[in-house]
């Protein structure tokens, strides 16, 4: 091909590409204009722990909700109408949560409600939802057997018996590398949603022939872990199972470090992910998770887009740990379940929505969540993760293991 031909071809290509781009942009603009939501907004009400002891995690749910609603409205809203999230601060208090959900339904007259954060708050909201027959999709409710209302739907796919599945998954993971522990120390907060898991771990360990070297319960809010650490060091178990919520795992690890003791294998039920992953003491720490920005979970384009958007928003909000994990993932899936049902049924009727969700389940960033079991809990989609080289990776079940990684155990 001669030079002039090349230039000509390039010009023609550029012209064609330019025209195509212009046409695509015009089509997008037209589509966006056509889809711009109009009319009175669909009002979805909820509370969050924006202040008080649960505010650390409440902030994650706020970021997710703001992101989801903004993206939803940018894509045309719901049923052609914009969506407004009516959000109130429940101050991390279940009694205030109950009052505010009453207000959202009876005074603010929201079209729909969605869950608050944390088990006690969700339980309060559930009671109000039941009184008014409202559908309630919620994110991280920790005691599945207490969720008896038939129009409540958990976006956090724990399964009905996490007190069995969680310790069994952990022991299976360790067994897969030939490191089945001979002894276990179970140290747990009395916080309700972790204490029953620790009690379950006790039974699972006994059933699997793992000797219980120590069982301790401490009060939620304990600051001095020194004496507990001294007892763990004296018991010296193969596996330290900590019924930890929030920062308690870090506090115990720091107290153990002061005694020059490193647990051989250690698991934390619901730790705050950032401090444990970034702490020099957190190496090999294991925990449970519903979502991580890792393959295969982020192979789903929607999950990858969510993870990217969340990290950007969390960075902008000044959060020290900006990776999406269980809380962010479950919060996003909560919004996906509710809005997906509205789109599918073209209805805002609570009964219609509840029937649809119950029957069809929902595709979310956490995977397909079903609601066909006891208390609308379906298949357990929880995974076991581990801190390796300063970041969380998924190590169990086998089909979810982060490529290039294996379970680390001693």
């Amino acid at each position: 091909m001669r030079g002039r031909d090349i230039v000509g071809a390039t010009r023609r290509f550029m012209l064609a590409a330019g025209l195509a781009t212009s046409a695509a942009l015009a089509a997008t603009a037209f589509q966006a204009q056509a889809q711009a939501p109009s009319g009175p907004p669909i009002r979805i009400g909820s509370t969050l722990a924006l202040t008080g002891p649960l505010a650390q995690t409440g902030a994650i749910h706020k970021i997710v909700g703001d992101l989801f609603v903004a993206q939803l409205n940018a894509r045309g809203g719901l049923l052609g109408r914009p969506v407004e999230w009516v959000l109130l601060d429940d101050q991390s208090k279940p009694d205030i949560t109950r009052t505010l959900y009453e207000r959202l339904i009876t005074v603010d007259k929201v079209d729909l409600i969605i869950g608050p954060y944390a088990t006690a708050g969700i339980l309060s909201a559930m009671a109000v939802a039941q009184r008014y027959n409202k559908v309630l999709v919620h994110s991280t409710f920790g005691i599945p057997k207490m969720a008896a209302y038939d129009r409540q739907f958990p976006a956090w796919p724990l399964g009905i018996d996490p007190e069995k599945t969680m310790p069994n998954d952990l022991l299976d993971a360790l067994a897969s590398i030939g490191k089945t522990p001979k002894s276990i120390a179970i140290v747990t907060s009395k916080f309700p949603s972790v204490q029953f898991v620790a009690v379950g771990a006790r039974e699972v360990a006994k059933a699997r022939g793992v000797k219980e070297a120590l069982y301790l319960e401490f009060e939620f809010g304990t600051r001095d872990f020194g004496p507990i650490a001294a007892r763990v060091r004296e018991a010296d178990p193969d596996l330290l199972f900590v019924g930890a919520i929030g920062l308690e795992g870090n506090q115990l690890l720091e107290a153990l470090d002061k005694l020059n003791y490193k647990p051989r294998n250690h698991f934390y039920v619901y730790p705050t992910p950032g401090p444990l992953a970034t702490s020099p003491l957190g190496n090999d720490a294991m925990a449970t998770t519903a979502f991580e920005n890792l393959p295969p979970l982020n192979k789903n384009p929607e999950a990858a887009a969510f993870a990217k958007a969340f990290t950007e928003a969390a960075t902008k909000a000044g959060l020290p740990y900006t990776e999406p994990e269980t809380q962010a993932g479950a919060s996003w899936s909560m919004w996906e379940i509710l809005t997906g049902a509205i789109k599918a049924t073209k209805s805002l009727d609570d009964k219609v929505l509840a029937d649809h969700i119950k029957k069809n389940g929902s595709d979310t960033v956490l995977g397909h969540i079903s609601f066909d079991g006891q208390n609308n809990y379906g298949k357990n989609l929880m995974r076991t993760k581990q801190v390796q080289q300063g970041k969380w990776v998924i190590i169990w079940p086998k089909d979810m293991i982060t490529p290039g990684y294996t379970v680390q155990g001693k």
Partner: protein
Amino acid sequence: MSATLFGQSVLSGIFAGSLYALMGLGMSLSWRYLRVINIAHFGLVFLAAYMTYEFAGVRGFSALAVALLLIPLFFMLGVIQQVLILRFNVNEFSSLIVTYGLAIIAEAVIQLIWSADFVRYENRALHGNVEVGTLLLPMADILLVVIAVGLCVATWAAMRFTWLGKALRAGLDNPAIAAAFGVPNQRLLLLVSGFSAALAAVAGVFVALLYTLAPSQILSWLGVVFAAVLLGGLGNPLGLLAAGMLIGVSEAITMAVTAPSWAPVVPFTILILLLVLWPQRV
């Protein structure tokens, strides 16, 4: 229970008790001499802790330099707080509500600046232990005990043996007669308030060194420190130190010999027993 476990638990209690005393010292002084039940003291402690995290942890200044900066800064904050309390004529019981409000404002400000999420100041310089037989004494905790004991003893000595202490006690007993003898009551009150806030800054530096921080933790210290202040006697630094140690060690031994969940009951049980058996103490 082995001797090592017992000894380590007692040490842990001494460390915790030292922090109770350090946090309570400013509160005890302002309650006794200013008649201000200063809940905002905990807000100042955490503000100092977050500033330590920011300047030493994030911006890389030395913790000592940050402490030396915070002490005069917080002294001024304490003076300003007392000026406002005097200006608006806040009495002892009203001060409980007013300063509780200030603590809530401090929590909101901290959350606004540093977010509600956890932050941790990793200080590797104070990492490590001193071994005494089978017992381990962490460096940061040793420093805490030295500073807490030093400040309590120094404050007690200043109140007991110097003109300043005598003037404060005289002003408390009868301000008019004290003033007639040349005691500048108002200035001394500002001095006590500033000193209390400076103590909050020192406590805050140790909170940052020893704990992961979250704004919601501010009032979680209130109960146990309040108990130590009452047990020790208002304005009694040595009593406070002893009370802090008693509570800390009692909690730790409870955790070592029985279910740790019983530990939070300990300080309040001791306080109730004291109120019943020795009511004139409080």
